[in-house]
């Protein structure tokens, strides 16, 4: 089956992102496909590479990065939500005159249309929120 995943809560604050990650892992382990993981609301904070949790805690951002790279996942951060919350890639840095970037690999910033497209293309769009 082809899944799409929406993550709409921030890491560490809310378990939604942990559950989304574990669900994504389980989906792939069962041989299913993930069309896209989309990050919205405070979910965009899952994509900052500046996250530095204590050493004995899970590193949520790194964990996403590793899973996405190993499985070639399309990880998309909503641009409007990202701009509000200061998640920045090279393009956004230049467009908005900022002096830094913080987007982790292999996340990319794009529009909400990518969420709608994921809903259209996937057999199931599974929402992890509050």
């Amino acid at each position, binding site marked *: 089956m082809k899944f799409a995943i*929406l993550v*709409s809560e921030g890491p560490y604050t809310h378990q939604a992102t942990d559950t989304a990650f574990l669900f994504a892992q389980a989906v792939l382990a069962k041989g299913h496909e993930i069309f896209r993981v989309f990050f*919205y*609301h405070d979910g965009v904070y899952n994509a900052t590479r500046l996250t530095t949790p204590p050493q004995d805690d899970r590193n949520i951002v790194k964990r996403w990065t590793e899973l996405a790279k190993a499985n070639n996942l399309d990880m998309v951060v909503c641009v*409007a*939500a990202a701009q509000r919350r200061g998640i920045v890639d090279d393009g956004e840095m230049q467009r908005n005159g900022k002096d830094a970037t913080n987007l982790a690999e292999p996340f990319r910033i794009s*529009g*909400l*249309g990518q*969420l*709608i*497209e994921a*809903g*259209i293309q996937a057999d199931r*769009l599974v*929402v992890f*929120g*509050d």
Partner: protein
Amino acid sequence: MTTKQFMIVNRKAPYGTIYGWEALEVVLIAAAFEQDVSMAFLDDGVYQIKKGHQTKGIEIKAFEKTFRALEDYDVTKIYVDQESLTERGLTADDLTIPVEVLSRAEIGKRMEEQDIVLAF
């Protein structure tokens, strides 16, 4: 393009958190993608479409006007939970847009018919 049924479910009060506003952005984009979009308002979500938002005191932009633009995007399937209205002393006359007031069971049925339910 494939058309699917998208229902956006609103459960939270309009200001206080950003969920209501960012849910509305999803509605507008889904409509722009010519999807079959509906909205359901439950719990404190019914306050989102109550008439007369006054947000000057909290210095947040009011988005009541955007609900009135939904018709221009062909978003006309707006369902509101009767119990949630009653619990808050509201009726359909207090709302800023025309809606269909349904029982919880009926809203549940509409949800079942959807391809995609996004709850905020």
